[in-house]
């Protein structure tokens, strides 16, 4: 699906027409959400853990310079190499340089949102290096030449039949459609590539400042293969991934899997500290950690948005969002979908026009903030972003006039009640709830947009203000 040239509304309409997608998204988010509810209840007093999680993230981000320095020092002490990248281009060139130094032809990758952010695969391809996704969902998405549709489950939009077709084209022979056959084909094919790969590229969920460790939470085991078999391991790390110590990691390790997949713990929680030691049979000879800024440091010191760096990328906000539920991930048109994406994308890519409209893709119901395991006030940020957009003069002229008119009406009780009376009468005698004289509505843009999918409430015979004197007497009695 090529959606790059469409605007948010057009992408959303495309998604709303896709019945398979809508069913799959609903099923998936319900499964993840129920899993989260059950596993967080099993932990006991989840709110206490959540508050502790918030404290850890807030403290770390407020002292990010200190902890980054500590992390870098400890990692280098253990033989790792640290690179700082100010933007996507620099991060990609560092990875390309490391790969070229090793004369690498094949890079195996485990899931990394940062690599999507910096479009690493494209840069590798330009330099003749194959970048192979090995997470099953990511591989499927790569074979289909698409982008992930969910932070945790990248290919929820693909049906079994589509996956079989992709694998058959890859295999050059027919395959059956059952999950075991398809997953078995992936295991066999990808295992050979793992053993042949020159370089492994992974993301990281957390980096422990105290020890210089990289921490990854995975289920399939490809994360372990990527970091064990190739001679060189490159970690792509968002600069805010830091936690101070193992004790803090213990808190995050209880929060992340439960919020992401509803598991008490993912199958593998891997703590990597430096390249392989002397006398060890396996593990990479070199470890490079690329610490990526790419718009993150600009949020520091911003009282409205610094807390977005607390995010641990669990996807819990996607799974409760009524908008994501209807339109899925691709309609957001950015690497990070859902409520968190609607905040991250415009902040990380202020130059991208597309991302600013994302703040409107929310009903501001607040379910995201309530679901967030580290209590980021996501919906407050969406309001702030809308405010920012309005100040910058986004929106149509009619919209601005309408808002100015509303402001003058709303600021005087007398004008407000008078205007209400006029509007009610006018509405009652013309379009009523929108079903009458629809040609009128079709000519007025605001009404047309509204009435395209729903009716207006019928105007009441008496306004609440007129009813109040009677009600007040009743209450007092």
């Amino acid at each position, binding site marked *: 699906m090529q959606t790059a040239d469409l605007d948010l509304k057009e992408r959303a309409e495309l998604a709303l027409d896709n019945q398979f997608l809508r069913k799959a998204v609903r099923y998936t988010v319900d499964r993840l959400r129920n899993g989260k509810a059950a596993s967080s209840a099993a932990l006991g007093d989840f709110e206490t853990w959540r508050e502790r999680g918030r404290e850890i993230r807030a403290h770390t981000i*407020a002292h990010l310079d*200190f902890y980054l320095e500590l992390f870098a020092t400890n990692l280098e002490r253990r033989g790792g190499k640290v690179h700082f990248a100010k933007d996507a281009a620099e991060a990609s060139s560092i990875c390309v340089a490391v790969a070229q130094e090793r004369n690498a032809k094949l890079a195996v990758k485990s899931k990394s949102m940062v690599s999507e952010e910096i479009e690493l695969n494209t840069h590798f391809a330009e330099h003749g290096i194959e970048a192979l996704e090995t997470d099953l969902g990511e591989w499927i998405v790569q074979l289909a030449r698409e982008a992930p549709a969910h932070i945790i489950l*990248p290919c929820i939009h693909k049906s079994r039949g589509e996956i079989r077709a992709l694998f058959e084209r890859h295999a050059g022979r027919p395959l059956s459609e059952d999950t075991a056959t398809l997953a078995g084909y992936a295991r066999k094919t990808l295992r050979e590539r793992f053993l042949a790969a020159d370089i492994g590229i992974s993301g990281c969920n957390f980096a422990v400042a105290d020890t210089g*460790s990289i921490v990854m939470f995975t289920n*399939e085991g490809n994360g372990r293969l990527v970091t*064990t078999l190739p001679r060189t391991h490159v970690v792509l790390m968002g600069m805010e991934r830091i936690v101070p110590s193992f004790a803090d990691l*213990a808190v995050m390790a209880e929060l992340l899997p439960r919020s992401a997949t509803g*598991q008490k713990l993912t199958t593998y929680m891997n703590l990597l500290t430096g390249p392989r030691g002397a006398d060890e*049979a*396996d593990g990479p000879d070199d470890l490079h950690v690329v610490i990526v800024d790419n718009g993150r440091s600009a949020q520091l010191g911003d009282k409205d948005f610094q807390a977005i760096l607390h995010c641990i990328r669990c996807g819990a906000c996607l799974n409760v969002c009524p908008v994501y539920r209807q339109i899925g991930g691709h309609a957001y048109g950015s690497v990070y979908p859902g409520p968190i994406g609607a905040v991250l994308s415009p902040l990380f890519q202020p130059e991208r026009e597309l991302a600013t409209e994302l703040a409107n893709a929310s009903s501001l119901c607040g379910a995201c903030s309530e679901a967030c395991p580290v209590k980021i006030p996501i919906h407050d940020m969406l309001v702030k972003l809308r405010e920012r957009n309005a100040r910058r003069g986004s929106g149509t002229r009619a919209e601005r006039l309408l808002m100015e008119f509303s402001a003058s009406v709303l600021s005087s009780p007398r004008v407000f009640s008078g205007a209400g009376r006029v509007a009610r009468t006018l509405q009652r005698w013309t379009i009523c709830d929108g079903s009458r004289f629809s040609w009128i509505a079709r000519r007025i843009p605001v009404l047309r947009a509204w009435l395209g999918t729903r009716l207006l409430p019928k105007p009441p015979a008496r306004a609440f203000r007129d009813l109040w004197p009677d009600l007040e007497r009743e209450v007092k009695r």
Partner: protein
Amino acid sequence: MSRVSQRLGRGPEARLEEPKRSWVPPLEPSPLARAELVAQFSSELERVGGAVQICASKAELETRLIGFVLDSLARQVVSFSKRSFALFEFERIWSELPIAAWERGSEEAALEFRATVAAADVGLSIADLGVAATGSMLFRAGPQRPRSVSLLPRSHIAVLAASNLVADLARGIAWLAAQGSPPSSAVFVTGPSRTSDIENDLTLGVHGPAAVTVFILDN
């Protein structure tokens, strides 16, 4: 980095404020008895698709382990070094099973061992720790303990002493931290490799082991 400090308004003399801690996960020894830890560990691991065999003596464990591997018709078993199993006093395993145990040596030996692991059906390892609340086991890499033994073969068998069970992940991580500088790799493994990427349908063994069996020594 200076940009980070500048954005945060932290000059060169800025210090680390003492972090606020409203609460921390408890780390004192768990009140649970060993039998309760074994029971909880087993049920949690079985819930995620792992299998548990509880053995009352070292001799029983060795006999059952040999029987289990022979029944699986494995052609090649790979394991941590013989020395690393000292606690379990294995005698017959090394001769009765088609097993290649890692012995540290030259780079060529390592290369050869890696190739053997890649072709093996079963990996035999020893868990440093078991976590009862999640059914997880901790494996620290080291000169005696290659990472790939618990990763590449389709079947992973681990031995675990019941005395090495802790109540929860926080205590498991605290134990790891207390061992000093962390190993190059430490991994908490919770059951077999899994994915739900194809229409939310759960499959085991997409990349890592499809079967995880733990022999617990509870003597």
